[in-house]
């Protein structure tokens, strides 16, 4: 554990990507199995145990230290885990009798099986055994708040460097691997064959697009790209495969790889051909795509009733084919995958699954016109469900993550962003029992890694039903309370994404982010989107530059609302 803590400690201060890689690779090389595997799991967010609540940590320290001294210290340090790690009193045991500090493996495997009531005692024991840095790392690990500016991708890249492999190769086999990744390290060190993914219907890491800017078009050739509609539904991966006995297993995954098959049993019979489709989940009624709000009725349901299935018939609109039976198509250029997809959908011949049409265009002007008026450019009556256009390079392989220059998204409304709910405040009047004022933020890179920075506050735009949902979410996910304000969980993988619409942006030295929104409102709730995929501050800064270049009409409403 102390060696892992040392690594986290160094990583937390190191700003350079290459140097972070060096530190990580050095660790993987130096530390043996299974510790390094659990470290890789911790860094890629692949560990699963119930996280300890901050209140538990507070109770622990309260039982060991003076309350006033703790208060003064916490005030000074500003971080609970760090304060506790630093002021945890030395255990009053004889030096030669001290048990050795726990290994990372010990900590992870114990936490996986430990009962809730045993946790405080076990934590106290470990805190006694570890040094300051070890205690800090332990507390970060058990509270699930690592935040050291390392992406899962970076950790995998560092592991790949052990065997001079392309990190992409790890991404491809990753879904079939599990901690402590003994088979992965054996392969990387040349001691065994490459692990194969034995799951008949595995998830493939999703390829994502960059938001396109006006200035990007100058360097892009229309002939290199295929355009298609960006449907306003939920991006999913529908996978079917044969198991060892030849039976078809079908699974539906969210874009983060969460298995959501159970919520959409009505789609499963349609997934009868072995293959992996990248597509959009929609509700179709009489052949027409319904709005996202209609689709929302089918999300987050524990029980899927026959009535629900009948009233909200599910549909999959296919964008891409990643695998056709046994063949992995991901290395093929998009244009070729598209041909495979067309054949596959034709062969399937199922009314629940259709092909997302491409949008023919010869010039950027033609595409601009199509995007402005999807109805007359092929989308017809479904035009309202078109969120914008997607541009995909003809020669792009299917790469996990958000590779540069391959896929672009070009949304119809430039003044919409996905932000993360950070704080909630009680409303006034008849809303005084609801948390109805929301402060939201977008991601930015700081010295300490990725952080959310607040960019605005909104208190309308949602329906009464949505207000109830957010209120419930706020109450269940409060991490701290300051008077009437609740601090709501907002981490890469935990939190609520709000789609915020606004009329414009202005520079504001009063806001930490440097920007203020005009007339922001909650456009919709993105329960389906993980916070880490919300927008970035750079996106707003680019919008700001565009706004400044046009002499726009001033809108009176201020960004702060009230």
């Amino acid at each position, binding site marked *: 554990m102390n060696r892992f803590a040392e690594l986290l400690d160094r990583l937390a*201060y190191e*700003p350079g990507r290459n140097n972070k890689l060096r530190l990580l690779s050095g660790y993987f090389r130096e530390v043996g199995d299974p510790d390094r595997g659990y470290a890789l799991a911790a860094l890629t967010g692949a560990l699963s145990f119930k996280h300890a609540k901050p209140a538990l940590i507070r109770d622990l320290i309260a039982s060991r230290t003076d309350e*006033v*001294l703790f208060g003064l*210290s916490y005030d000074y340090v500003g*971080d609970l885990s760090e304060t506790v790690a630093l002021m945890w009193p030395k255990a009053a045991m004889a030096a030669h009798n001290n048990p050795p500090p726990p290994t990372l493996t010990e900590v992870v495997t114990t936490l996986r099986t430990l009962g809730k009531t045993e946790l405080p005692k076990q934590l106290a024991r470990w805190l006694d055994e570890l040094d*300051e840095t070890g205690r800090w790392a332990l507390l970060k690990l058990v509270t699930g708040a690592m935040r050291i500016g390392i992406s899962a991708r970076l950790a995998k890249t560092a592991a790949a460097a052990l065997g001079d492999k392309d990190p992409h190769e790890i991404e491809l086999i990753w879904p079939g691997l599990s901690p402590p990744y003994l088979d992965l390290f054996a392969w990387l060190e040349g001691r065994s064959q490459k692990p194969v993914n034995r799951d008949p219907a595995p998830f493939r890491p999703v390829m994502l697009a960059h938001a396109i800017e006006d200035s990007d078009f100058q360097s892009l050739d229309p002939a290199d790209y295929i355009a298609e509609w960006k449907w306003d539904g939920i991006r999913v991966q529908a996978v079917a495969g044969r198991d060892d006995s030849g039976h078809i297993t079908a699974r539906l995954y969210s874009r983060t790889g969460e298995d959501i098959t159970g919520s959409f049993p009505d789609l499963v019979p349609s997934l009868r051909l072995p293959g992996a489709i990248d597509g959009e989940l929609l509700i179709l009624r009489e052949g027409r795509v319904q709005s996202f709000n209609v689709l929302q009725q089918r999300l987050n349901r524990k029980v899927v009733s026959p009535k629900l299935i009948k009233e909200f018939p599910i549909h999959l609109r296919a964008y891409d084919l990643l695998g056709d039976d046994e063949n992995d198509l991901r290395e093929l250029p998009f244009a070729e995958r598209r041909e495979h997809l067309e054949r596959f959908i034709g062969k399937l011949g199922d009314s629940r699954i259709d092909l997302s049409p491409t949008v023919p265009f010869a010039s950027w002007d033609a595409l601009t016109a199509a995007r402005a008026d999807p109805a007359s450019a092929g989308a017809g009556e479904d035009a309202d469900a078109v969120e914008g256009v997607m541009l995909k390079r003809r020669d792009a392989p299917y790469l996990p993550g958000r590779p540069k220059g391959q896929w672009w998204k070009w949304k119809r409304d430039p003044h919409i962003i996905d932000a993360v709910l950070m704080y909630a405040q009680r409303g006034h009047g008849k809303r005084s029992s609801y948390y109805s004022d929301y402060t939201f933020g977008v991601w930015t890179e700081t010295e300490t890694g990725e952080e959310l920075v607040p960019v605005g506050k909104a208190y309308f735009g949602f329906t009464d039903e949505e207000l109830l949902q957010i209120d419930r979410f706020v109450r269940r996910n409060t991490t701290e309370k300051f008077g009437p304000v609740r601090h709501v969980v907002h981490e890469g993988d935990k939190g609520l994404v709000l789609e915020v619409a606004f009329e414009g942006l202005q520079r504001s030295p009063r806001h930490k982010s440097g920007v203020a929104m005009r007339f922001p409102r909650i456009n919709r709730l993105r329960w389906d989107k993980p916070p880490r995929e919300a927008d970035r501050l750079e996106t707003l800064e680019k919008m700001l530059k565009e706004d400044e270049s046009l002499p726009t009409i001033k809108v009176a409403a201020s960004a702060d609302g009230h």
Partner: protein
Amino acid sequence: MRPQDILLPTADGLCCKPGGFHIDPVRPVARAVITHGHSDHARAGHGAVLATQETLDMMRLRHGENFAGSTQAISYGEEIRLGDVKVKFHPAGHVLGSAQIAVTSKDTCIVASGDYKDAPDPTCVPFELVPCDVFITEATFGLPVFRHGDAADEVKKLLASVALFPERAHLVGAYSLGKAQRVIALLRRAGYDAPIYLHGAMEAITHYYQSRGIALGELRPALGVKKAALSGTITLAPPSATADLWTRRFPDPVTAFASGWMRVRARARQRGIELPLVISDHADWDGLTATIAATGAGEIWVTHGQEDALVHWCKTQGLRARPLDLVGYGEEESETPIQGEAEA
């Protein structure tokens, strides 16, 4: 005699009326008794100055020959009479020449400890515990989060980083009086025998340490050395210089800072430090509390730093304690870019 009749905080500093002198005065006074050479304690312009030979030499180095009207050197363990009190100097273990000053009037003994540490330091005489009735303690690191480990381990961390990044230069920010020389001595003890480079601002004081018989190995000025030749080397520089244009002469530098403040992550990040080294010339929380208890003093006066926490702790131990509101300390070297951060 009540303790406050012997020593009293004033705007000029701690004043001993019956002895006719001030301890570490912040403004020019007729007679000054100085604990150690850091510039917030040892200022120029006093009439007469009483201090250890090392402290006087350092004041001369920093302020020039005419830093005081007259000077008198005193050794550790030596006692002299000033007015109606007796004054005796004891090692404080803070930096070379640093002293605690015991002031005795009749049967009451007050120890003004200045800045001190009870941790080992190869560049100065170790701290000596002086039993007393009133102990005046600093509180730079007077919070229980400040617990400094073994400085030798921190130096190991530095050497591990040099080994991991052999093509980069390591720039170690360290206060030029005391900390820099201690880090160099610790590096030598850890077996590092390559030349160590120095920022121009710390050459004079470092050479003074060598002249006092402290072995620091081969030292070279960083000035004028080709960039490529600085790969894999260690350079000591004042903390302010490590965030300066000056660093551009180094190949992809790793910025380290040797200071007790580095215990708190936000402090290190605020300054853009990549390699924080927790090496302090002040006592940490455990050191402060252990020392206070060991002096046997029934009354504790707490000066510069985190007075509140230490005063609170003293009271929980049944000791009389109060903060001494002295201003002007904790700003050594006038080079600390971050407010409230003392030389440490």
